[in-house]
């Protein structure tokens, strides 16, 4: 993993047209500003992980679910 130090107000550029800027940093929370082309999906990772887990659980619990809705 590439590790970079950035100060408030500084940015990094990724590929063509993606800019991530550090807007604020306090109490362990970093506020980022992101500019990216419309076709780039930006999403909080934990939300994706939650949906992955929910889908796996749903498939795992199928028998229980069927019993309950019958």
């Amino acid at each position, binding site marked *: 993993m590439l590790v970079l130090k950035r100060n408030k107000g500084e940015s990094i550029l990724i590929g063509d047209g993606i800019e991530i800027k550090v807007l604020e940093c306090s109490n362990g929370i970093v506020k980022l500003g992101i500019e990216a082309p419309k076709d780039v999906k930006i999403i909080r990772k934990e939300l994706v992980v939650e949906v992955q887990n929910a889908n796996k659980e*749903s498939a795992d619990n199928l028998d229980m679910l069927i019993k309950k809705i019958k």
Partner: protein
Amino acid sequence: MKIDTRLFGEIEINEESIIYFKEGIPGFENYSRFVILDIEEGSMKCLQSIENKTLCLILINPFDYFKDYQINLSDNEIDKLKISKEEDVFIFNVLNIKDDKITANMVAPIVVNVINNLGMQIILQDSNYSIRQEIKC
């Protein structure tokens, strides 16, 4: 063609009914071909993988439970599913069960373009919906 299903054993399906999820679905990114089958219970359906018999999710029509459920697709998602008209789109939500309570994932609807059979599980960013919305069946 014949496929092996989790709920109904081996069944015959029409190849034209196969829905293609180019990116798979979260948690099962390697499986891209599914069919949506009716199950006996009311209007519920199941999303059955063609490639993995055990991958089967129960789906509801969200509007049976939440009349004002609303999702906004991004331009990118509309492009990927090649959607030209709103009425060509079907929306389903995946059911789950925990502590004997049935919940529906309202944050990540399954969106299918019925014209070309392209599907995608969309993740709604910053929505007020819950991944585990309790429902009464």
